């Protein structure tokens, strides 16, 4: 397998971008990444797009060709691929693009992730998010996406004594990080009380325990590692990738407080990278709900099982803490355009490892991790990145 590195990154701002279409967003992120990598369009071998549900959000399928077309690449007749895997689609697209290069089939691939979620109403958007759970045996019966995560939270509280305050600490920390990220949807700090007093969404999760609905796109340019030096002084190598699946429905899983897919994807990625959790200084994990980040830092072995709540409250995962988690603001504060998530996480890690993260720079960051979930954890993807120098 050939080594693969990231040579360019780009993203749009995230938020309720009323005047921007899906096309606008995909193009902006892609062009920024291509510009960052100083590529000519002739250099590109393929385009991979992570997108969860353009069919439902904007009535448009076949978005892989669409994005290439509107990026001015139609005449290149490039192979384009759209990847679907719930919230993990962007991270899977990244993994698939990496494989395409590692195999020798391509040398340079642009990986994009995009979602336009605000062209439908909020109730409808929530229902679309629920469609990554088991429609026939969860959603039909009234289980919302937030409700399913709430049931994990309830069980975590029951088994480990995790508190609402500890979950709120995740939101507070990620908003604090988001305030330092000029592209974040929420660049405003919040308090524990504000989280606790927010209206319920699905008990024990309140409104501020949930990531928002967002529009946005992100893109990275992957290149075969030998060639990467030609384009970038600080190519960021993908050191390991792991993907795993699990029962689609939450109720069928072995354990309601551990996402086995995360555990296994993590093990696979660390194994390939010959790294340990303690080697990682900065991680972007899937915090679509506050409980999700607590599960992730436990299941990725950064924090002992059951201690994710107290660890967060004590600041172990804060910027330049024991491990800096979600420095971008995470899905919670940076925003959650679903298809963009996995790619945006990679963008943040690359910026951190390049030392370009500005006010939220993690000191001495050499190894970074992204963790992305599909559905309620039926898919998990973990990528490990390292500075090439």
């Amino acid at each position: 397998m050939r080594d693969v590195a990231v040579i360019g990154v780009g993203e749009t701002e995230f938020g309720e971008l009323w005047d921007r279409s899906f096309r606008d967003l995909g193009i902006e992120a892609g062009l920024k990444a291509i510009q960052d990598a100083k590529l000519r369009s002739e250099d590109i071998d393929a385009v991979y797009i992570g997108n969860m549900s353009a069919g439902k959000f904007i009535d448009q399928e076949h978005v892989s060709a669409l994005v290439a077309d509107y990026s001015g690449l139609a005449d290149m007749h490039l192979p384009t691929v759209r990847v679907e895997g719930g919230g993990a689609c962007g991270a899977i697209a990244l993994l698939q693009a990496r494989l395409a290069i590692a195999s020798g089939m391509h040398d340079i691939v642009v990986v994009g992730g995009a979602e336009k979620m605000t062209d439908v109403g909020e109730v409808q958007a929530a229902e679309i998010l629920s469609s990554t759970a088991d429609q026939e045996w969860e959603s039909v019966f009234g289980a919302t996406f937030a409700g399913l995560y709430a049931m994990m939270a309830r069980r975590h509280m029951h088994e480990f004594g995790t508190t609402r305050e500890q979950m709120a600490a995740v939101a507070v920390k990620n908003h604090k990080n988001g305030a330092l990220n000029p592209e974040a949807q929420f660049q405003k700090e919040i308090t524990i009380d504000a989280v606790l007093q927010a209206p319920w969404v699905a008990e024990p999760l309140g409104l501020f325990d949930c990531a928002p609905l967002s529009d946005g796109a992100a893109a990275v340019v992957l290149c075969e590692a030998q060639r990467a030096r030609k384009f970038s002084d600080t190519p960021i190598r993908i050191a390991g990738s792991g993907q795993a699946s699990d029962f689609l429905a939450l109720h069928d899983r072995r354990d309601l407080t551990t996402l086995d897919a995360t555990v296994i994807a993590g093990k696979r990625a660390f194994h390939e990278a010959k790294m340990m959790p303690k080697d990682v200084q900065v991680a972007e994990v899937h915090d679509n709900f506050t409980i999700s980040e607590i599960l992730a830092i436990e299941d990725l072995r950064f924090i002992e099982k059951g201690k994710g709540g107290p660890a967060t409250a004590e600041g172990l995962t804060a910027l330049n803490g024991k491990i800096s988690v979600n420095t971008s603001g995470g899905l919670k504060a940076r925003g959650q355009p679903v298809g963009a998530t996995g790619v945006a996480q990679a963008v943040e890690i690359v910026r951190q490892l390049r030392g370009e993260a500005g006010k939220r720079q993690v000191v001495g960051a050499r190894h970074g991790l992204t963790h992305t979930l599909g559905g309620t954890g039926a898919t998990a993807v973990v990528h490990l990145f390292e500075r090439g120098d």
Partner: protein
Amino acid sequence: MTLAIPRFWREIQSRYNLIGTKCGSCGKVDFPPRAVCPVCGRKSIGKMQRFQLGGKGSVVTYTVIHDAPAQFEMQKPYVMAIIEMDEGVRLTSQLIDVKPEDVRIGMKVQASFRKLGQEGDAGVIHYGYKFRPAG
């Protein structure tokens, strides 16, 4: 979200009567029915037998839904739970006839028959199980 008629209709047996499967190889009960046993894999193919759950179980975890899908707007806030059936298999269902503040992990519940939703005022009505505290 509305459902296509045949999509719901073909699941009527399981939604009305809790019909699942039992693996002829290891005896594990699954709900809804599975063609392949998650434990035995290939060995179980062709040996999965129709199996009806007794309708009794207990709450493993639960939530009170406040932000509800359109179909459930009239019932909010309502309780959703993961229920472990006496046969060992788990499922997700709404809990009815109970105040949200009275729900507890471990609470015994039993299946009842309720309306799950409808395709607008002119469309088909869907029915199936919901659970209530065991009497």
